[in-house]
């Protein structure tokens, strides 16, 4: 029987994967392009600015603990405006998931299964995604917890293996390209990675078993995500060098090829890359869960999950006929889509604050 309850650690695991998923192939590509050798500073600055987003997230989470995001929106903005905003969020989530789906398929097709149809790869993941989604929130939570353990074991192993290849000289010159690139890169991380956490608000706080810990776990998970992003980009630039790193679609994967521990643990990049595949897969799953719960909040409709998943898969393959279109989309279009969502959320937050203040005053 489904109890639809998760622990705060499982919630935190979801948050980490949500933040990190768009890092591979999307954020790294974009921030290397905009910030050049200073790109490793972007996650830190974005992390500091992003504290405001975390504050917003916690405020939303604590507001009407029993309600998921769509209901909270309706309560804050009223029924008519609430429905419009929810529709906009669903559309944005669909677009976000299309890019996640293509990114996942593209990584596998370009690096491992060059002759396999992207549709087959996408279909295999879609089936898993549908099953996982239909199992309910408790299963999603357990899977998130298992995934995060695997991801961090692999991540730490990757870092240890890469330490001998680090060349600090590759990180120089410091801030030589001016602040513009750095600011642009920071904004991109905020939009690509940090702004995506609000999808998790579809899980009401009341569904978290140890909900008193949830705020603390959110903050810790956020810090871990920022550190992970910083370390990833730091290692990419210091191991590959900025010139080579900016020529690759997936420099994180290429970087792993340099691992050679004790002269016999090498050629392990295809195992270690699983960490990013798991992140992408889980993010795809949670977005589908978000869309499904927003459209039909009270039903666990298997057919709807299947339609959304397969629809997103087909859209991803039809919309992005090649990597160039995808890269142009993620670099030029996706930030604006994410920005729209962020602006709406900030407006929502302001309205929420005004409402709560009014309520306090009326008492």
């Amino acid at each position, binding site marked *: 029987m489904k109890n639809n309850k998760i622990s705060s650690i499982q919630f935190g695991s979801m948050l980490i994967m949500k933040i990190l998923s768009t890092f591979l192939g999307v954020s790294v590509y974009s921030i290397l392009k905009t910030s050049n050798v200073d790109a490793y500073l972007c996650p830190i600055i974005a992390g500091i600015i992003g504290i405001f987003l975390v504050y917003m997230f916690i405020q939303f989470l604590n507001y009407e603990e029993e309600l998921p995001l769509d209901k909270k929106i309706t309560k804050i903005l009223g029924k008519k405006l609430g429905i419009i905003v929810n529709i906009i969020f669903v559309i944005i989530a669909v677009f976000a998931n299309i890019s996640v789906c293509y990114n996942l398929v593209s990584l596998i097709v370009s690096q491992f299964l060059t*002759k396999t149809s992207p549709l087959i790869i996408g279909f295999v993941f879609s089936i898993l995604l549908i099953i996982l989604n239909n199992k309910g929130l408790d299963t999603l939570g357990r899977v998130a917890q298992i995934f995060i353990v695997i991801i961090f074991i692999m991540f730490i192993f990757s870092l240890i293996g890469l330490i001998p290849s680090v060349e600090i000289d590759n990180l120089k010159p410091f801030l030589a390209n001016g602040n513009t690139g750095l600011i642009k890169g920071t904004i991109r991380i905020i939009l690509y990675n940090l702004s995506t956490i609000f999808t998790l608000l579809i899980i009401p706080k009341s569904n978290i078993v140890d909900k008193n810990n949830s705020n603390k776990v959110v903050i810790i998970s956020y810090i871990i995500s920022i550190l992970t992003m910083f370390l990833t980009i730091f290692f990419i630039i210091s191991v590959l*060098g900025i*010139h*080579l790193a900016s020529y690759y679609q997936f420099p994180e994967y290429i970087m792993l090829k340099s691992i050679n521990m004790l002269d016999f643990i090498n050629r392990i990049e295809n195992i270690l890359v699983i960490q990013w595949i798991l992140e992408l897969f889980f993010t795809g799953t949670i977005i589908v869960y978000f869309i499904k719960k927003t459209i039909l909040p009270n039903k666990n409709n298997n057919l709807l999950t299947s339609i959304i998943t397969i629809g997103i898969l087909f859209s991803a393959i039809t919309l992005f006929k090649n990597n160039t279109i995808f890269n142009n989309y993620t670099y030029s279009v996706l930030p604006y889509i994410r920005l729209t969502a962020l602006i709406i959320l900030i407006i929502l937050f302001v309205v929420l604050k005004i409402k709560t203040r009014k309520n306090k005053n009326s008492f």
Partner: protein
Amino acid sequence: MKIKYLLITILVLLLSGCHNYNELNDLAIVSAIGIDIKDDNYIVTTQVVNTQKNSSTSGSSSDIPKFIIYTGEGKTVEEALKNINYTIPKKIYVNHLQTLVISEDLAKEGIENILDYLFRNIQMRDIYNVLISKNTSAKKIIETLVPSESINAKDLSKILENNMSSLSTTTQVTMKDILNNYLNDKIEIIIPSVSLIGNTNDNESTENIKSSEANSRLKIDTVGIFKGSKLKGYLTADENLTLNIITNNVDETIITYQCKDQNYLVAELINNSADIKFDEEKKKFIIKVKSKGNFEEINCDLDIEDHKVIDEINKNLGKEIKNIINKNVNQIITKYNSDVFGFQDIIYKNNNDYYKKIKDNWEEEFKNLKYEIEVEVNIATKGNGLKVIK
């Protein structure tokens, strides 16, 4: 429930790993590739590990070559490599590539066209060694049978490593290094060379590896120096050592200096580090070299139990190293006008504001480059003997 079983069945079929698979027996594992150019066509020679014959129980295994050579020709490297499929019964698999040999002619014409292929190929790992075939074709190098190793790609890698850990008169360069330096316009490419010595016509015959002294052998030579993507010439052993000292690439080397008339002192330097900084005020590079070592051979009557004598030897060795660096840096700059040391990159990374002022006139600045060398040598051990046998 039926849908669930249907999905599980589909999953089992799709996840079985049977799609797009390759049997190990069907792969032609390439250990080395040679690229030549002839009449604007690329000739790609692959050295494929002979797995079939090695596992055979009949006949004498020493007579059987451990690798097979396949050659293809085409307008591009990929086309040439694919054209090998007219003669090979297996699928070419380059994931285990150890050595890439580029012919001297091709290196002189420019390697930019082959770099893109080597960078783009997802099967290739960019950590394989790259060499230039000096005074011979890449094919000739690839097909040479060597007595010490069954696969000559491994032999070449080991000679390179051996040189780096004993003499440092060549430099081990991987494809990653080449790509990094090629994409960075502030440092030039270097690639070590390999030549065929002895009776070069016997190189591919099994007779070559039957005698105790092989008729033809592979010799790893000094690095080829590039300007842009074109080979400009080869460094001498001393020039190569200087390059390695400055770029912190010396594992171990020996320094010989004349201590008296025709008598020499040989010191092995085992712990070397160089630090280069650009002094903006003096407008010159300060190259600081620190070396630790031990005596290998002393042919002069020296009292090495006296610390003053040791200090004197340290000073003289330092002077010798300083002379080598001084002479060779100048020589490399004037002879090749190629910034293989990465001086421009050092200014760009560490003195960026100054770099912005000089970047347009870098060619001129480079020709008139000033540098100051400080060498500190410390001979820590004397080998077995406390005194000199004289």
